[in-house]
């Protein structure tokens, strides 16, 4: 959770007075707030943490870090279904209602 993940900005827009972007994290696309890096542009890379862009990053560094985090299983941790993971840790089939983890993801 404390680790930030690099992503590539796809689109930028102003929404209700807040600067937002869609960002691609190696195939997973998320909405990201740009209020802390307001001049970030499509095509640029940034270190993103819990939906907020925190620092710019060059493409090569971003690519390498994404590969590392995937190897460490940290992308799954960040973007996977935590209910499923928690149920799996208990050794039984998923017993929670569907949807909650996914409903806030777009």
């Amino acid at each position, binding site marked *: 959770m404390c680790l930030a993940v690099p992503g590539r900005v796809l689109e930028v827009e102003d929404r209700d007075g807040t600067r937002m972007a869609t960002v691609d994290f190696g195939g997973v696309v*998320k*909405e990201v707030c740009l209020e802390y890096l307001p001049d970030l542009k499509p095509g640029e890379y940034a270190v993103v943490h819990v*939906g907020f862009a925190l620092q710019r990053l060059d493409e090569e560094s971003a690519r390498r870090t994404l590969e590392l985090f995937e190897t460490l299983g940290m992308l799954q941790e960040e973007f996977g279904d935590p209910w499923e993971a928690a149920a799996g840790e208990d050794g039984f089939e998923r017993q929670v209602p569907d949807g909650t983890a996914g409903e806030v993801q777009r």
Partner: protein
Amino acid sequence: MKYIDEFQDPALAGRLIEEIRAAVTRPWALMEVCGGQTHSIIRHGIDQLLPPEIELIHGPGCPVCVTPLEVIDKALEIASRPGVIFCSFGDMLRVPGTGRDLFQVRGQGGDVRVVYSPLDALRIAEQNPDRQVVFFGIGFETTAPPNAMTVHQARRLGIRNFSLLVSHVRVPPAIEAIMGSPDCRVQGFLAAGHVCSVMGTEEYPGLAARHRVPIVVTGFEPLDILEGVRRTVLQLERGEHRVENAYPRAVPAEGNPAARAMLDDVFEVTDRAWRGIGTIPDSGWRLSGRYREYDAEHRFSVEGIDTREPAECRSGEVLQGLLKPHECEAFGTTCTPRSPLGATMVSSEGACAAYYLYRRLDLPATKPGARAQRTGAQNTESYDTAPRGTEPRSTRPQTADPQKTASLEGSSVV
């Protein structure tokens, strides 16, 4: 060299290791502060690639691990209330409170939801005006700015059914506390790169000078960590104690000024308890007076909870670098990721989880020279040798004989 083929640039890794080897003349103990770095180190066997004189000590840099049991219990209490939607990052679901966790609260009917971003929790509040939406605001300097912005947005948008259960922590006071401990063996720090992405490096020169300790801002890739070690060792061998930035591609000296300004507006520095360590002065943030109405502890009455730490969990010593995970008697026996005694085994960034996950069966209990003063248990025979994923399921939680309520807090060195 074992493991080195896994590196993205084995030749460069080899050169860095050779440079470190050539520079070292005596034992040095370095602490990597960040749990992400710990996982990278153990996954890639970096500690074993280094010359035996260099010991890497794992620091307290896992936000899930250091969140005190009392706060977890408050979260469980609030999440159980009717009319509450409790939102959290996924890695808090399995952290044991006194007798249960958030996953179990949800099984008992609590409306617990996992969000990717605190802004998602704010959106849920907007969509459910008749419910109270509480977000579990834990984490270091990397996580605090998003949470600060979310509270700021709540006020800007006039959303009043949203609040934050705050347990944010700050790294520099933790380093100060570790260095101030009489048991401290740490001689150099690899500072956490992403924390510095926000805060910059200006909090560190004073620390480095006061404690005469090199602090090198370090990233997470294996090569980043080797470079951080190389620079720290070079300083130590030369008798220097400076702040260096070995992660400049993500860390400008000033950090992120917009994020720091928002932190200053929404939060104020406060003393904060760290799980297993105890209270460290000025080591946390709480909502400032201007935002008190968004404080979940202010909105909900959650006092008087009977908090009970599992007596056999030694995560406090692990978090202070006084004990390696596999030196704990419970490690791999009564404490596994499926049946954790403490957060260091639960969290994806926890040191105990890293040792368990990557099956460090070949770890020596001590390294020659560097660990001469260690007196802790070295029961490597207790290490679970079953293949991953085959350990028998045990009934959770295994915390505790309620009579054994001795807390690690108070016995700490800080």
